[in-house]
């Protein structure tokens, strides 16, 4: 039971983050591309629980922002125009998991007030909404890419280990080749050799494919090791004697022994891939505007005044930190459960 304890907290945190971002349509007050040209780099909204007369309300209100004349980017609240927040209201349509269609949102406020819980970016877009939508993209990319890497590694590692001979030799040479390339450089090179200007959905799939190809080598080698020892077991021999085909032996007896390792590898790869996607998008090689990704949101920090003055633009970084720390703890817990001690790769 003490083993189980280490899993719970990171697992819950990771699941919570994923769930919230998947349902970003519900949690985000605005669409990710909805702009307000009058309110670039607005600071996070102040929530007022007392109205202009001083009465306490349970429902907070938000006041409209007005730009101070002659001063760019500095805002003042117009206390005469305050609007209460509405919860569970109807707004723009969105879909979650490509299946559920809805128009219910958690938070909304009547215009012209804007509820910028995390401020706004250079185009007046709500940072929180973009954080959620961007998170959906970055996290999804990481998950899917890790799944493809691990899946590809399982396939090639099992085939190489089971059949041996020249099949094994070829796969192992390829593994060495891919491991001889510096990871990040390979990623960049692969990305370089693919079309630069693609639509966001194509970019997303491209990213997943590229990340998947870059990372299959290490899982494949580890899985091959397991397959090599498992295929010599007497009970596998017995199953073959009963007439079991190669495929039966592989999927019934050998592959299940690799699942523990696969999960651990996946837990290690997901944060790496999320970071890779963020890096690529930060440098302009990943997902492009207007679709948000934590990477291209952080790219705004490369401008001097943004870096220094607008602290809320760092929000994706903080979210990234939370996600990474929980994934590392999850991977640690898995390794502890599997081997008794945690190694760092």
């Amino acid at each position, binding site marked *: 039971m003490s083993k189980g304890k280490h899993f719970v907290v990171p697992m819950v945190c990771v699941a919570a983050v994923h769930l919230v971002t998947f349902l970003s349509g519900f949690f985000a007050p605005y669409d990710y591309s909805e702009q307000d040209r009058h309110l670039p780099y607005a600071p996070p909204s102040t929530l007022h629980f007392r109205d202009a007369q001083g009465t306490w309300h349970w429902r907070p209100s938000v006041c409209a922002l007005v730009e101070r004349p002659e001063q760019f980017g500095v805002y003042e609240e117009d206390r005469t125009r305050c609007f209460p927040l509405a919860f569970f209201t109807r707004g723009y349509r969105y879909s979650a998991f490509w299946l559920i269609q809805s128009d219910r949102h958690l938070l909304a406020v009547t215009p012209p007030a804007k509820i910028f819980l995390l401020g706004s970016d250079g185009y007046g877009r709500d940072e929180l909404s973009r954080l959620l939508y961007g998170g959906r993209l970055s996290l999804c990319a990481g998950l899917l890419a890790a799944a493809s890497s691990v899946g590809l590694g399982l396939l090639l590692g099992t085939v190489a280990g089971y059949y041996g001979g020249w099949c094994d030799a070829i796969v192992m040479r390829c593994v060495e080749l891919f491991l001889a*390339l*510096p990871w990040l450089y390979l990623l960049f090179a692969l990305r*370089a050799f693919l079309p630069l200007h693609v639509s966001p959905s194509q970019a997303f799939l491209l990213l997943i494919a590229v990340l998947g190809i870059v990372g299959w080598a290490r899982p494949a080698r580890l899985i091959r090791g397991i397959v090599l020892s498992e295929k010599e077991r007497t009970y596998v021999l017995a199953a073959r004697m009963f007439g079991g085909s190669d495929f039966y032996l592989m999927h019934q007896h050998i592959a299940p022994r690799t699942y523990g390792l696969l999960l651990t590898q996946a837990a290690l790869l997901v944060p790496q891939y999320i970071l890779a996607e*963020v890096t690529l998008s930060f440098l302009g090689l990943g997902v492009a505007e207007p679709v948000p990704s934590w990477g291209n949101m952080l790219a705004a920090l490369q401008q001097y005044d943004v870096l*220094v003055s607008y602290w809320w633009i760092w929000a994706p970084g903080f979210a*990234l*930190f939370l996600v990474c720390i929980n994934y590392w703890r999850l991977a640690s817990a898995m390794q502890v459960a599997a081997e008794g001690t945690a190694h760092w790769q």
Partner: protein
Amino acid sequence: MKYLAHRVLQSFFLLVGVSVLSFIFVELSPGNYFDEMRLDPRISSETVSRLRMQYGLDRPLPVRYARWLDSVAKGQFGFSFAYNAPVASLLWPRARNTLVLTGSATLLAWMIALPLGILSAARRNGLVDHATLLFTALLLAIPDLLLALGLLLFAVRTALLPAGGMMAVGSEEMGAWDQTKNLAIHMIGPVLVLVLACLPTLVRHTRAAMVDALNLPFARAARTHGISPRRILFRHAFPVALNPLISLFALSIGSLLSASLLTEVVFSWPGLGPLLLEAILGRDFYVVTGAVVLASVFLVCGTLLGDFLLIAVDPRIRMEKLA
């Protein structure tokens, strides 16, 4: 000896494989440098095709590969369309700049990590140990990008450090000592980022390796014999822990060229990373290939060095591989 020759040969073939792989990717990729030119109505399509022929882009793949190999043999590493110069003339200065950064960072990181790791292992579960583990856990979770941006913010806010670049403007007029000081000041930010990025893994691995070595039966037996803890630590446990540490060191050496890409871009340090990025955005493929192959050379050499060191240091491996 046969083993070492075998390893060197294997590394060579690996590098050949890497270069072939790069070329195949170039072949498969849509678009090239001259596509941009084609869009420009002022440049006629004949000029474009003539340029393509001049650079040999219309030849089949094996011919291009052979010509590239020839260029490598001559020390040129292909041709850059954007800079109109041999790739090597771009690579070497940039690589040197990167190595200055990563070399210092790696040295510094190991100099901190080794004593810290050994100390943590020696006083397991003590205050130092817990603090180290906590600190490294936090550092591990912070992505490199955030570290770089954070330090840049610190540099800009406090004006203690320059906000990027390698040398101040007008540094050519300074004397040699001033130039060195200037360089050093500019290096502090990126080196700090790199050190903080790789420190946690190094410390944890060192600690783990030392703990494993100290738990071995012979170390425990040495304790009961009354040998002083310090002697056990350095004379007995450390040589055993050296084995995994050498592999880690080989990896450190191997990633000297490739670990600092992001940091260089954020700090505007003129290293290999920004060159690669620029070449990618400009579709200057020979530069990309050259940079990737160069970085792979380092990685492969690093692994090879690790193997050689292991044989030199660990008598068990020496016997196994050279017998």
